[in-house]
């Protein structure tokens, strides 16, 4: 049980990162970038190719991956927000869904359908024991890294001028534009931050799940669901949603086995929304509409 909770926290920290990447884009642009899961996958496969296959230095591999992911996210933004004047959330959703499908298929054609083991970038030495639970560097590292990243993003959004401009843009695009905020730049920035978080999630999760062309779909769906569970429009809510999602997944897996895990998890997700339709920390829809 203790092991489940720990691994739940680890995977939850990763879902929280992905949920936060969804929320950053949604909060500023009001659209969902449904290809985010596939961005995580691309980051994983790029890192794998450079660091493992081509034997690049780790740092160089990571840098190149980040560069590639930033380019990719810019490309996604171009597709989703083509007509910036009237962003239709449904169209943007379907466009990013389509882009995700293409990325997924392209990865299959490039890297094949086999999962690859991914080296732990954080080390696997066991640090300490709690009862029978062995806590290793990787597990602790994921949690610490995720918390650090999320704290930085949270600080950035709340305390810096650019962060405040992002909040202003999300509240009223026209008014923000009128006071001199470059709305396009803010959109690009939110896509970029989101992509960086997705890349971080990729480096952190790959040692656990292996790297494969199909890994992104699952992470993307769960990150999106976790963001809705917390609050898609508020970063902190999304983070808590991610942690809860990871914990629930590990506990359900412990109780009912890994086969029954996903359907029960999604069932719980729907049931929670029945009770708390706006997510656990969200605003009501009329509040958002008004």
């Amino acid at each position, binding site marked *: 049980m203790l092991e489940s909770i720990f691994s739940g926290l680890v995977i939850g920290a990763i879902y929280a990162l992905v949920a936060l990447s969804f929320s950053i884009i949604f909060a500023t642009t009001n*659209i*969902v970038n*449904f290809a985010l899961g596939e961005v995580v996958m691309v980051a994983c496969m790029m890192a794998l190719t450079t660091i493992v296959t081509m034997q690049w230095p780790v740092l160089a591999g990571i840098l190149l991956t980040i560069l590639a992911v930033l380019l990719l996210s810019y490309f996604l933004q171009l*597709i989703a927000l*083509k007509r910036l004047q009237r962003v239709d*959330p*449904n*169209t943007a*959703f*379907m*466009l990013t*869904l*389509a*882009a*995700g*499908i*293409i990325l*997924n*298929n*392209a990865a*299959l*054609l490039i890297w094949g359908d086999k999962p690859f083991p991914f080296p732990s970038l954080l080390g696997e030495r066991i640090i300490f024991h709690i009862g029978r639970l062995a806590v290793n560097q990787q597990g602790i590292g994921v949690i610490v890294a995720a918390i650090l990243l999320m704290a930085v993003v949270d600080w950035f959004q709340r305390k810096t001028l650019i962060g405040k401009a992002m909040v202003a843009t999300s509240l009223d695009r026209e008014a923000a534009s009128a006071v001199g905020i470059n709305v396009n730049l803010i959109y690009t920035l939110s896509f970029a931050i989101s992509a960086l978080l997705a890349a971080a999630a990729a480096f952190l999760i790959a040692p656990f799940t292996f790297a494969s062309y199909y890994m992104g779909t699952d992470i993307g*769906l769960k990150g*999106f*669901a976790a963001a*809705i569970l917390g609050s*898609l429009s508020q970063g902190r809510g999304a983070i808590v949603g991610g942690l809860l999602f990871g914990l629930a997944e590990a506990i359900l897996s412990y109780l009912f086995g890994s*086969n*029954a895990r*996903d*359907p029960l998890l*999604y*069932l719980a*997700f*729907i049931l929670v*929304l*029945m009770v708390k*339709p*706006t997510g656990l920390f969200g605003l009501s*829809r*009329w509040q*958002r*509409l*008004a």
Partner: protein
Amino acid sequence: MDSTSPAPQRILIPALIVFLLFIPQIVPNVYYLRLIQIAAIFGIIAVGLDLLVGHTGLISLGHAGLFAIGAYTSSLLALKLGFSFWLALPLATVASGFIGLLLGIPSFRLAGVYLAMTTIALNIIVHKAIILMPELTRAAEGLRNIPMPSIGSFTLDVNNYYYVILFFFLATLYLMKNFYRSSWGKLITCIRESELAAHFMGNSIYRYKLLVFVLSAAITGMAGSLFAHLMGYINEPSFTWENSVLMLLMVIVGGRRELLGPVVGALLLIWMPQFVQRWDQYRHVVYGTMIIFFLLAAPDGIVGELHLLWNRFVSSAQRRRTIDLTLSDPVLVDPVRTLVKDLQEPILMVRSVSKSFGGLKALNQVDLAIQPGTIHALIGPNGSGKTTLVNVITGLYKPDEGEFFYQGKSLAGLPPDRISRIGIGRTFQTPSVSASLTAAENLLVATHHRARANLMTALLGLPEYFRQKQKAFAEICELLREVGLEKLANLNMSQLPHGYQRLLEIARALGLQPHLLIVDEPAAGLSQEEIAHLAKVLFNVKKKGIAVLLIEHNVDFVMSLADYVTVLDFGKKIAEGKPAEIQNNEEVLKAYLGHRRQPIHA
């Protein structure tokens, strides 16, 4: 006022049906005949999905799950309990509709795109449930020997099962066509284009989204049953959420909001794999590219774009005829009907209402009493809290403190649609009418909840529904006469100038048969003639006995029309009285002009 089908359709449709009847004679090959039937089944699903995606603006990525519920319910009833197809199919339809209802309950309290996630969740649950219950579903191995339906002792084969599918296919198209032409159809269009307006016209958005989702789910479940009995064999790979994406693609490729669009999309996407080598390897790239191509380059889909071309071709002659946009004189219609009997008591009482947004006090202890049959103006500088007050009265915002009574009844905690139905109509600062509907159709959205039409009679297109519709249109004509738009009833709102949209909003609010009409800056952006026209309209409204709360910046307009004036500044009421008193009130002058001590020369 209902447009009849144009001549080419009247010939084309029967011809098409006759052609469809002879397909089994033309296509003797069983393989291709089955493929046609699969395409027709997916056509049914796509038509049902278009109801959500195209018409209501909701994305579902779980229709393969609903499809599975229909298919497995029907097959298991037939295989385990020996039910006949004719009983299993309706039960499968109901089962799928019921699951749709359960899923819709949490989903439609959420913003639009969230539905995509809850429907994916449903699809994953259903798909995994199939795999996890092998004793029931036989998982990957699949259910076999699902029987073909029989009539008496005669069992159908693939050749005559075609006619069963054709029947349900045509029936679905017929029902949907009727639905889109009914007031329900106009209502969901309004929900898609201006959800807030539809809500303020007395309609529970939640209920109608749920209705549409259940309908769509039921149609998909029925298609599942048809599919299972056609194939005789079903297994889990047919029901992954990837197939839900395929269904969505059919709608996009064929054309959203075109009755036959999704059918064309289904036909194309079911047949395409037949012609492409190594399809499985590349199909996702093809799907994704098609979605992006159509959404960006041809958003109306194949049928929609053809339709546009055809319209351009046919109407080029008509377009030279300019549209006559003259307003007719507003008419005072039926002044007695809405007169409030007891003229002593205020129609609306607002008592010390406050509302803050964060640190900003938008309303601070505001009192207001509106007498029946008067025009009561609410003025004040920008940001003084006028629209906030309207939003509190009409239920959009909850006040932090204070209460308000409509004809002595408290309105506390009621949602906007209830308040509209009780008798407060409103317009919006930025007109929010449905651009793709005609003037008359826009009004149907306001009269819909009162018409109490029966959905079944509307879907089936029974004469009773047309009688009701006739009645509704008679009322709508009156409403249009009241604002002087009756000659423009059948023009699309996108063809009408801005000022006319404001007039239509007033007619729409009057369609609620209100006792209080709230108009939010109706004169903004209007020409001098339009303002004069508007004054006449509002004056008539008052003569009918309806109280008007007029929010306006145009001082001349207010002073000539209002019986009472209330002035707000920084969320506080600073003055109240007859127009002449207000014009010389020092507080008001200060608020508007700073410290100049000269009266306004209105």
